[in-house]
């Protein structure tokens, strides 16, 4: 039941420890560094970031066959945001690489079969126009 995570899945909303200034996505309720001494607040992170590492998956799990091969990357979000994992779409093969600037894009993630729920969430795509 991902419904309870829609707010975090549809937006880069996680949490942030105001004491050690660390962002968490997915959200954490306890700061691993500050423990009970930390102060956790909700935070919307930047939708822009840079690819830290990536792969192109050719052997997908059940339900992801249609998109294969698809790229997955860990992206470091701007403004000292957290690392976030997601697919990279609308990106030419030769462009995909370490350090590529990307932005979030709202996409279909998978379908629970032909009759099930359609899951939506964020993927990444190359930035076509900075700040637009």
């Amino acid at each position, binding site marked *: 039941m991902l419904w309870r995570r829609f707010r975090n899945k549809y937006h880069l909303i996680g949490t942030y420890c105001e004491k050690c200034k660390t962002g968490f996505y997915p959200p954490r309720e306890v700061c691993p560094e500050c423990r009970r001494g930390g102060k956790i607040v909700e935070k919307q992170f930047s939708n822009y970031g840079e690819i830290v590492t990536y792969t192109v998956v050719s052997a997908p799990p059940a339900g992801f066959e249609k998109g294969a091969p698809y790229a997955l990357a860990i992206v470091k979000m701007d403004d000292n945001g957290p690392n976030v994992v997601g697919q990279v779409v*609308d990106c030419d093969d030769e462009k995909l690489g370490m350090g590529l600037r990307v932005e979030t894009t709202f*996409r279909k993630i998978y379908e629970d079969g032909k009759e099930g729920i359609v899951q939506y969430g964020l993927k990444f795509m190359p930035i076509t126009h900075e700040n*637009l």
Partner: protein
Amino acid sequence: MNTGIVGYGAYVPRFRIKVETIAEVWGKDGEAIRRGLLIDEKAVPNYDEDTATISVHAALNALRRAKIDVKDIGAIYVGSESHPYAVKPTSTIVGEAIGASNDYTAADLEFACKAGTAGFQMVMGLVDSKMIKYGLAVGADTAQGAPGNALEYSAAGGGAAFIVGNKKNEMIAKVDETYSFSSDTPDFWRRNLAKYPSHGGRFTGEPAYFRHVKNGTEGLLKKMGADINDFDHVVFHMPNGKFPLSMAKKFGVPMEKMKSGFVVQKVGNTYSGCAVLGLAAVLDVAKAGERILVTSYGSGAGSDSFAFTVSDNVDEKRNLAKTTQMYIDNKSYVSYPTYAKYRGKIC
């Protein structure tokens, strides 16, 4: 009538397929089809795009231009004939994804290619009656033609979203008048559970498209006591390139007034997202004080006609989000097999 567009946004998927590429698969003369339809290529949604994702992107662009608090949106209507669910609204997915409050009314609309403009009229009414502060109307589709069918050359993906409000200083364009013309005309349909639409061939022309667009437009002009020559930009629904241009010819509208909203040649027919995408493209280039006439057409059948006057702050607001042209220019061609896979024609 005291409503206007305070924010608008377009979205066109990145992939394109050329009319020739499709024609080649079916052993047709691509060049002749291209000239006949006045369509060079059409936008193909990625495998992970649907009416909901297209609507969200268009709505986010509209919000950027509107510069309003998203929590003030009191109504969301998404018009489409390719809603991801038969039962379960697209409009609430859009609401969640743009960060709306829960304090809004919503529904999905269907009226072939004019469900987007129908939604626009609905939010106009809600805003004008002060039931809501702002309303969001989206027209979007991931239209499909059956493989080998004439519609396959034109049926495309894309859409546009509009935030309607009543504060003059926020308006990009004021709505001067709207008029609708409807009749029971079975020119194009899709039965429940059918994968692809069917159509009445040549019947879709004279008694369907042309009758409704003509009457819709004339009704608007009559209602507001205007002449079509008073307008600087004209958008007629674009099921292909040929129909709107021959409609324009009948009205005596010169090509330069059609040009700014004539997106069909490089995008295809985005169905519920078609006339509205044309309007978004016009707003990307229109000057303050200019007047815009838009007439949509939905099979079944009906036309919604609108008259707008562009406001002063159009220059400042249009640069706050990606323009329609930016989307049209950012493209990558796909082969027929890839297109067939992305659009679920083979799986």
